[in-house]
């Protein structure tokens, strides 16, 4: 739903895409107002994790103004200048660290000082991308835009499963004055599959069982499969029991697809069989590979963001089918930055005639845009 613009303030309705809107507002420097946040719900107003996100944004910026209405159903957010630097934040365990980390990742290159954030909370959550996924699939995307890796790092210090969490990650991100335009139309073929299985406060055999089943599926496609197990002990295992797996497929053009699966939250009365988990994750990875494209489907929006924020040059990338989230993000990009992508559905090559039906790959979309010439205005020059 397009925003209403009033006095250069974008007015939105509803709590969905709260994070997107705050993120884009912070980057664009435009004030936003979000109204009717769960106004018809039994539990109206902002959730704890959303307030927590505002707190985090306040920590990485200077001069941010936030006004909450009395009922909490409307927020006015006027962003300040991104400063970055050392940030300690304990994230709300209702959402995973990924919810917050993605925001930091998007903001990271545009801070005044290199970001060095320590986030505590749930490292693996159902709703959000896990830290493993960000580390393996999202950081390489940023690397394509900044080209030189001087201190881009994500370290998982401790893992924490929901509901109590107790995990900790350290995220470091260098700053850039501007991002370079990117042409990324080839992603190559999957050459190796790696993975991590973690087991927190459960029997270590769980991990091995997950590995076995996941490997069983993947080996049908590729011989180069290697899955690590991460048995966490003591304080490193967080506060809640749980186990899970994340698989990464790397192509020969440095594209990373990542899929993950985790056990059902403890205390819900359901149990997850490790074999099922491994198989499910492998299936998801295959699904991701099938969708293809230059980036993992969960990070299409990051790619779009950084393409749009590039210099005033043409960027073009080919990605798999657009997710709902990306579609909304593109709409938001248009509203905040006025940048519109040219989206084309890539045609399958016509020369394959005989067994055409068999090798029908997923639809690919070519995104082309001219960067808005965004420069990091907060960085200091000497």
């Amino acid at each position, binding site marked *: 739903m397009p925003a209403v613009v009033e006095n250069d303030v974008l007015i939105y309705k509803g709590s969905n895409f709260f994070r997107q809107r705050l993120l884009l507002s912070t980057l664009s420097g435009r004030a936003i107002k979000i109204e009717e946040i769960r106004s018809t719900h039994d539990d109206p107003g902002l959730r704890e994790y959303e307030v927590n996100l505002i707190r985090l944004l306040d920590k990485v910026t200077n001069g941010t103004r936030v006004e909450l209405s009395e009922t909490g159903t409307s927020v006015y957010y006027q962003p300040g*200048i991104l400063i970055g630097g050392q940030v300690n934040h304990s994230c709300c365990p209702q959402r995973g660290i990924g919810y917050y980390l993605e925001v930091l990742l998007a903001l990271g290159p545009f801070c005044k000082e290199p970001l060095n954030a320590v986030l505590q909370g749930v490292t693996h959550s159902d709703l959000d*991308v896990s830290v493993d996924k960000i580390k393996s699939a999202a950081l390489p995307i940023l690397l394509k835009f900044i080209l030189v890796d001087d201190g881009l790092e994500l370290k998982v210090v401790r893992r924490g499963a929901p509901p109590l969490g107790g995990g900790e990650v350290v995220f470091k991100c260098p700053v850039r004055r501007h991002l370079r335009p990117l042409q990324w139309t080839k992603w190559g073929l999957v050459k190796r599959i790696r993975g991590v299985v973690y087991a927190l406060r459960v029997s270590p055999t769980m991990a091995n069982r997950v590995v076995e089943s996941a490997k069983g599926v993947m080996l049908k496609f590729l011989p180069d499969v290697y899955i690590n197990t991460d048995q966490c002990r003591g304080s490193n295992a967080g506060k809640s029991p749980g186990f899970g797996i994340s698989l990464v497929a790397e192509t020969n053009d440095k594209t990373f697809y990542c899929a993950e699966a985790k056990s059902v939250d403890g205390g819900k009365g359901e149990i997850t069989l490790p074999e099922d988990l491994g198989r499910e994750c492998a299936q998801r990875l295959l699904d991701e590979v*099938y969708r293809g494209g230059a980036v993992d489907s969960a990070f299409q929006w990051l790619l779009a963001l950084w393409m749009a924020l590039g*210099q005033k040059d043409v960027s073009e990338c080919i990605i798999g089918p657009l997710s709902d*989230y990306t579609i909304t993000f593109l709409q938001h990009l248009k509203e905040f930055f006025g940048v519109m992508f040219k989206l084309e559905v890539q045609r399958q090559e016509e020369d394959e005639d005989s067994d055409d039906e068999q090798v029908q790959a997923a*639809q690919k979309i070519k995104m082309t845009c*001219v960067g808005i010439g965004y420069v990091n205005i907060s960085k200091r*020059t000497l």
Partner: protein
Amino acid sequence: MGDDAAFDKKKSHHAKRAGRKAEKKKNKTKLDQSNLSARQRNPKAFAIQNAVRAEKQFRRREDVIAKKQHIPQVDKTPLEPPPIVVAVVGPPRVGKTTVINNLIKSFIKTNVTNTNGPITIVTSKKRRITLIECNNDVNSMIDIAKCADLVLLLCDASFGFEMEIFEFLNICQVHGMPKIMGVLTHLDMIKNAKTLKTTKKTLKHRFWTEVYSGAKLFYLSGIVHGEYLRNEIKNLARFISVMKFRPLSWRMTHSYVLADRLEDITSQELIRKDAKVSRDVVLYGYVRGVPLMKESAVHIAGVGDMKINELSYLPDPCPLPSSGKKRHLMERERQIYAPFSGVGGIVYDKDAVYIELKGSHSHKKEDEETNEKKVLLKNVVETKETVDEQMQESGFKLFSGGAVIYPNMVKDDEYLQHNSKTNNGSESESDSDDANDSDNDSGIDQSEKDTKSSKLPWDNNSGSEAEDNEGGEDNEGKNSENDEDSDNENDDSEEESEEDEDFSKKWREKLSEKATEAYLDRQKTSKNIMKLVYGEFEIGNKTKEQKMESSDESDEEEIGGLFKKVTDTQKKKHKEKERLDLDECSFFYSSSKPNLRDWTAESNKQLLINSFVTGKRSADEDASELLKLDDASDGDDEELYGDFEDLETGEKHFAEKEKEENPSTEETGSKRKADPTKSEILAKKLKLKAKFDSEYDNPDDHRIKGDHSYYENLKAEALKQSELNKSVFENLDNGLRVEVEGFRPGLYVRMMFKNMPAEFVTNFDSSYPILIGSLNMAEQNIGFVSCKVKKHRWYKKILKTNDPIIISLGWRRFQTLPIYSKIEDDLKCRYLKYTPEHVTCNMHFYGPVTPQNTGFLALQTVNNNPNEIQELGFRIAATGSVNEINKSTQIVKKLKLIGTPLKIYKKTAFIKDMFTSTLEVAKFEGARIKTVSGIRGQIKKALNKPEGAFRATFEDKILMSDIIFCRTWFKVDVTKFYAPVVNLLLPLGSKNAWQGMKTKGQLKRERNIRSDANTDSMYTEIQREPKVFKPLVIPKALQKGLPYKFKPKQKVTTLSGTNPKDKFRGRIAVIKNPHEQKVANVMKMLKTNYEKKQEAQKQATAERLKAHRKQKDAEEWRKLKRQKELKKKICRQISKMGNKRKPQM
């Protein structure tokens, strides 16, 4: 453009190889071999004799090359560039207008009566220029410097350079140096030939030091019949038309428009009611710099920040000639466009359009020239109609007349006309298109109704595309449906068997099934993906009709009187409501988890297998195919690689076996390649040959070359990017292209601004440039700007903190209150009251956020009051560049807190008077303090009484007379004051007299306020009493221990009890009479004589004694010697005896 390039290509020179001339040349160059030295005969043998020298030479050459290299920049000049802005700048009465008139005459052969505002003319087949004159106002000079590509700097040679010229050059340097050509006029005023020569020379050299040495300086030697000499003007024109330009960093990141036309479209009724009502104003001009985005905020210099309400492009009013194979411009193509100055026959006034007809007899002559003019006039008349239309609040169809005249324009214009057409006619077309679309977009048909009435620009494209590929797409659809079906069937059977299960589970399954369906749909649908994403936005100059929606709602069909049929809009609304409060999730299938395909199933596996390196590759990547291609190209070498033995592993490879295997693999995977054609092979061979040639053939130069591959790669990358930038949107529909790319430079655009101050229109003066600069992201915000700044060395005064100054930064000119500071070694900004004289310092002010490294200049006044200028001399107060932006500042100033001891214990003391409350003390607990004498200490804790006193400890006992300091820093806040210079809104006569905030000094001077002298600072005579020290008292016990020397001596007591020194006080001097003198003399002589004798005697005695002692010594020596010998003898005897006795023992 392509054939243009071919047309321009000159035939290259070929040296003669045969014939008389070639023979002659050969003889000339042929040297007599016999006379040559060995080195000359065989230079190769002597190529490198001295390694050190060779190395030096190589290094020097590399240095020279490296010095020439610049970081390659992406070339952003558009295919059809906007006219070049040529600004004519100079002090008043140097002949600016004459130069412009003459230039126009030389370019397009028409006389222009009055020049006002920008004048655009076509000068050559590929170049247009916009001439603009700069009036004598700093504001205009600044704005012109920001937008000019080329500056003609006019100077009266008989007078010399004036201050305005230097000011302008400095302004240019700050905002990005455009090309500058100096033009000396009034040379005929200097009669003497010699002075003329020297003047020219001195002026030239002065100009060179300002611009760069070798800068072009033109001489216009005189005026004949009010015009400069034709030859000189022609020369100048030629220079202008071949000038090349360098990209400037600010203009390569911002788009800008130099408005050359203005219309007020406010309804007359509103104006009649209230003359001051804010107006709706339309400005026209060419986009320059980078593409102009529709949503971007703009700054109109001299007015303020504005939001473009409507932006659309128009057909070019002054188009470049069509690219035919002609050498020269046709007379018809030499166009001029200058609405402000009434050229081309039109004068736009506030509310009327005047047409100039050149007198009553102008129609009579019917030669070619007038014919041309008639064409022009016709052009104008046609436009006039559209102006009328425009009066009735119309869009931008203003220049459709122009498009009619130049048929090549119609193509561009097509889209415009589409839009201008209302719902008639195109209805059916778009309907069919829409039908097409709705087939393709599943689930997004909601926006259909809205878009029906107005055709979306991308429908042109993708509609047809969709049709083209319908067949293939269907196949795809069927295929995936099959897969889906099989999945669903499985599900179904399961469901049937477990029918008695509880409802909720079934429901959940249904849900997931639905999600699966949606997910599979997603992967194959959205033919028109652009519409899926951007369908809800207004695209291409048109506003979505709100009415349609409401009518939709009223149209709701009622079924059975009770139930309403759910319309699309309602569905859409419902959907939106559902989405409104969902949890945000960036996964592909956000909340619903569909059943994925079972990828291990053989049929599904085939879809995927080729995504892995183990799968089959496409023809251009497959190694074996490439090998085969190589083999084929080698032809007869085929057997060479037929079969061979790997020596390391001992494996044997056979060609035949390979051939057997190949078909088998082809069966399993898909065959993706076609056999290489002959042309392919040939191309490949040629490429290889070229590569070899470039590597090995180096015919003329045998010297070693450095490796410049890094630089070459950078250059290639930039080139590739610029080509991509130009080519990627080439085939896109213009309306969509403008959306995606923005209004590219070179387009003539119409911008509508709402709520413009009425003064802008009522006080409009076309001699002031209207510069509309776009603002990039976040640049419309205001924050604290930190920059480095240096007072200009020609400015007479130094600048004081918090005195208002006018800053020209980015597009803006504004007044603000700066605070100067100095960055200390610990990066702390320390407050300075005044700018230092000759070094840069830091400056903070509250102003618009601007990217780092942007240059700015500061003025204390922009008022053109001649007295003030006279007094100031040079008006530019300071120049600098932006360092950092922030939302808060940290500038500090030194603060010393002073206290005195209240009570002193050993090393602890109570200090009072430093603070006023306990709270203050609490804040400073642990702070370092120091006495004047240098004893250091620390604040410990507050005391109860008196308020503000505290306990402190020191490294030594302090004195009651000590003063105690606490050194701290005090934060200075930057005043939030930011006032744009709105000189364009001022009344006509006083546009150059903008007055902002005044300094305190100015106000005091104006009102004749004198400040009272501070009595504390007044001089009073200091009277110091001499210090009286107490006598030194040494304790008795210590006195006892002292040596006598240091013991205090007893006072000598005399009988009289007076000081012994006083003994002589009462005595009288004696004066001898001559006799007594004689006696005394004799006595003296006797005494001397006696003393002499005594001395001689003493000497003699000493000598005697010496001799005697010598003798004595000798005797002693002899005696000793004798005794020694005796002792020796005795000892020998004794030892002999001893020896004899020993053996017996």
